């Protein structure tokens, strides 16, 4: 059995630059799948390879079991929402949405009807006869979505479609996109460098770096069980401490923190030795001194909903923790000795 899209050993080389190094991953049908990573990690290249705008140097791309790697873009039943929308400026909104249907040979009355329905779905029926340039950024975004969904593609590709919108609109569109994916049942492959976008919308995320997939998993897995330093650092905020590990038993590592305090935490590796330890700032709380791990408060940063507390462990390691800015919270002054409590899942030993 194969999924909606199977990427098998796909490599892409531009001249001397290797954009993708034999990437393999499988995307399920009806999944909201996100390719996440910093710029230059190969996520957009992978999307363009699926769309057919680039040709693979090596490997296969299977769409519901059929290898499409050598097909022209117009022969692939996938459609794309472009970063800057790429709406045709010389056509009306309705003509834009009907374009794909026209190219597929649908007759004029049917495609006008279908395009009208698509515009209704994105709440833009009143704008059918406008030129794209007369619409706001958010409206253009919806037209681009309607245009790409109108021919009922098997997979919808989205190339950082929200990056051109302002913050409020971006947040609203996240929910709308997710809803749209659930309503249409079409597989969405979404490319972004914004980890928050990825976490809020995706069923699964592939974190990429330098042309390679680092980790694939649900948002919770990616955030709570990162495999390496890159993933832990890229997704959310974290404290990374270099530690020595004596032994790992049944996936649990015995770790000695700087200052001598020992904890037991889940591990992404089975090998003892020198590793990095990730401790999520929001999974630590301040407790009275004398119950275990101790530190000195260095600084407090006011973030509105949260407070960021910078502390130094007795062994010299700097860490930060996040506490909610609730009314009952007592803010320690810089220089105060505090106790730190690590909640369940706060710490995790990484592979590198």
């Amino acid at each position: 059995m194969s999924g909606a899209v199977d990427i098998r050993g796909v490599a892409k080389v531009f001249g001397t630059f290797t954009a993708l190094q034999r990437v393999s991953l499988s995307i399920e049908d009806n999944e909201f799948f996100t390719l996440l990573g910093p710029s230059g990690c190969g996520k957009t290249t992978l999307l363009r390879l699926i769309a057919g705008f680039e040709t693979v140097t090596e490997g296969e791309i299977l769409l519901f079991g059929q290898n499409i790697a050598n097909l022209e873009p117009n022969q692939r039943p996938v459609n794309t929402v472009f970063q800057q929308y790429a709406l045709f400026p010389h056509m009306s909104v309705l003509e834009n949405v009907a374009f794909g249907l026209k190219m597929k040979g649908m007759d004029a009355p049917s495609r006008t009807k279908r395009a009208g329905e698509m515009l209704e779905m994105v709440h833009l029926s009143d704008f059918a006869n406008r030129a794209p340039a007369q619409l706001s950024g958010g409206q253009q975004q919806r037209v681009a979505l309607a245009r790409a969904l109108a021919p009922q593609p098997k997979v919808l590709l989205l190339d950082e479609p929200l990056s051109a919108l302002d913050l409020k609109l971006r947040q609203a569109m996240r929910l709308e996109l997710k809803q749209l994916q659930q309503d249409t049942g079409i597989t969405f492959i979404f490319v972004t460098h914004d980890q928050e976008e990825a976490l809020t919308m995706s069923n699964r995320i592939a974190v990429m770096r330098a042309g390679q997939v680092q980790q694939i998993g649900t948002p919770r897995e990616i955030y709570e069980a990162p495999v390496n330093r890159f993933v832990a650092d890229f997704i959310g905020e974290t404290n990374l401490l270099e530690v020595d590990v004596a032994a790992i038993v049944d996936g649990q590592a015995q770790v000695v923190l700087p200052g001598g305090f020992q904890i037991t935490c889940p591990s992404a590796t089975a090998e003892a030795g020198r590793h990095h330890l990730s401790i999520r700032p929001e999974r630590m709380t301040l407790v009275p001194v004398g119950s275990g791990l101790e530190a000195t408060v260095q600084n407090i940063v006011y973030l509105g909903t949260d407070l960021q507390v910078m502390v130094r462990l007795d062994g010299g390691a700097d860490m930060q923790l996040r506490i909610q800015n609730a009314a009952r919270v007592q803010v320690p002054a810089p220089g105060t000795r505090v106790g730190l409590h690590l909640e369940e899942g706060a710490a995790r030993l990484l592979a590198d």
Partner: protein
Amino acid sequence: MALRSVRHYPGFAGVAVLCLTILYVPLIVVMIYSFNASTSITNWGGFSLRWYGEVFTGPDAPRFKAAAWNSLTIAVLASGISTVIATAAALAMLRAGAFRGRSLTFALINLPLMVPEIVIAVSTLIFFTMISFQTGYLTILIAHITFCIPFAYLPIAARLQGIDGSYEAAARDLYATRAQAFFLVLLPLMAPGVISGALLAFIISLDDFIITNFVKGAGMETLPTAIYGSVKQGIKPGIMAISTMMLAVSILFVTLSYLINRKGRPVTSG
């Protein structure tokens, strides 16, 4: 300290007036005297349209009509064909990705702009003679197509450069073939540049004298060569009328070319 505008430099006004005078006074004089009622080309004898009438009905009228017809058909064909070639060249230069000899190709396309016209004229004539090609209408047309290409190329390439590649990608993504993506999406977006290039090529072809004179062969005339032939036998006021009409056509086309090119907003994605 704010930089002073060039307008405030001493002597600016004087130099500007001098340049404009040298450039435009002869044109203005010819325009005015084309409406002269007198047979003299130096004395003003009142306003009249007699020389315009003479151009269309006078003894030389058939010769000039034939020359004008040749000029017009050659200009239409040469601008049309060179625009198609220039469009193809622009697509190859800007949309085909990097290829070996790209800079060389660019230089070759634009070389006719740099090479002295007389050199092109002489070498074209020699070439036609060497291959025993009968000079006449066809040789003029071929020569015109050749030197019109860079003039058509420049506005077309400038326009194409400003069009984001994602439009074509979007069209291809939405099931358009290569041809459909070009004719339905890219060409309409390029249209202002293409029209501008064609108009420019048209005027360049219509105006050309040197190359045409070399490759036209005996008995074949275009408007500029006919005017030259006529002037050799003494300047008649009718020539001024023809020149004024050509000037009007040139101004009209160049203005159109400019306006069309400016009208289309730069098309960048987003």
